[in-house]
């Protein structure tokens, strides 16, 4: 099982990161992002989260990256997941794509997930899955 996540620019610009991670690696991924910031200043957060089986999540991410194309900043490693679009534009696109392709990828009702909360979420989703 995998998560698709959207992270807002912590500095508030109209840029959002779209990425995927497996259930198993989600906490490590957040930890890696957290490394760039002192915890007292900013908590690395998956602001929006979706979940599903591996193949649909991977396919959805691929489709989204193709759709946003040149709105993604092409600066090589570390830059290629940032989409320079407003969050609502990206959310609209994700929802339309899930509906239009019928991806079995489902939104998570969350205010945001960070290193402290992600394990709980994974446990909850694993229960849903089984």
């Amino acid at each position, binding site marked *: 099982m995998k998560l698709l996540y959207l992270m807002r620019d912590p500095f508030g610009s109209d840029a959002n990161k779209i990425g995927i991670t497996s259930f198993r690696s989600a906490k490590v991924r957040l930890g890696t992002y957290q490394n760039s910031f002192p915890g007292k200043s900013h908590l690395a957060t998956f602001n929006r989260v979706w979940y599903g*089986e591996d*193949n*649909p999540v991977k*396919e*959805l991410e*691929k*489709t989204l990256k*193709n*759709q946003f*194309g*040149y709105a993604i900043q*092409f*600066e*090589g490693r570390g830059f290629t997941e940032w989409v320079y679009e407003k969050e609502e534009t990206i959310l609209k696109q994700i929802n*339309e*794509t899930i*509906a*239009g*392709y*019928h*991806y*079995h*990828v489902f939104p998570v009702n969350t205010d945001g997930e960070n290193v402290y909360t992600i394990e709980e979420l994974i446990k909850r989703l694993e229960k849903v899955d089984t």
Partner: protein
Amino acid sequence: MKTKPYNRLVEIDKYLSKFTVSFEMKDDAIDTRTMADNYENGIIPLADIADAIDIVLGPQKHPQEKDPFDPRTGVVKFDYVGWEQLFLWPRFQRDVAPNHLYKIQQDFDPTCVIVPTAIKIDSKYMLWDGHHTAQAMKRQNYTKFPVWYIDTDLITDDEVSDAGFDDKVEYGVWLAGQNMIRINSRNKRTLHPYDEYMILLETKDTHTVHMNNILTSAGFYPKRNPNTNNAFSQIKSGQVIFDMADDYGVKGKYFKRALKFHKQTWDLAPAELEVWRPMALLYKEAEVQGFALDEEFDKELGDLFVKKFGDPNTVQQSLKDEYYNELHTNGFKEPRDHDQWRVYDAIINLYNKNIKRIQLPTALCRW
């Protein structure tokens, strides 16, 4: 001072910002058809394409600066020559294939002749490429033959010795052999099916226009890659399925219905080969065997796909997985040798297990 390394994607982004309509710029294809939308009448200056090529290849792959060169001053010349002046030296040529010649003959048009290339040694024009073309022209009763040729009389002794030869004829033979391999093997680029399709379409080939009408009426668009909504990129397979005719010789019927099924089930998804192809085969087989697949069938099967698997890529992947699971668990008497038939069988099994409202053709592999 440390210089910033060339970042191709940034440069592509910068280059594209000059255009109203953005287009793909990749190593294997700059999408000139979309690029053309930025120009009046769709005609692009080569200079603009050259700039795009420079950006994709980057400065490291740029050839070293060279002095301006007017090829008319070089050793390669053009002329129309008589049949008796043309020769073949098999040392740097392949055997002649009469059946290939006949193929050319059947499709011959004097406006499409590519000029044969030769090396001229002692007043003999010896072809290193275009031998079949020259023979085809002769069979069409040409009286003169166009030739691009390397004039060995203009090659200096220094050039010959610099290349490690002490004999101009041997040097010429070596050069012709090298060129023959360059042209026919090393740098041969076959036409991508998408390019071939678009050329046929835009030059109004009847068969291709017919197929494209089906594609677009079903809501798909021919594309090189399946990376945009409603893209159809499986051109060769599309042509094969389009060519499947019914009892009255009508082509495109099963292709059309399979695409319609795909579109009504997944409004935005690009065409997934191992979904629409086995569906077309199923429509055809059902018709041949006398089973009527009504519109309700498309609706209930589409809904089942969506409910059980979701998107079309996952559908075909899951159906193949089901086939292989069964193959490895219980085995099949006659296993299928192609994915299109594995998915075909899996669809029938899936339908029979979950819906079974109408009868379908029997799957060769059943579970």
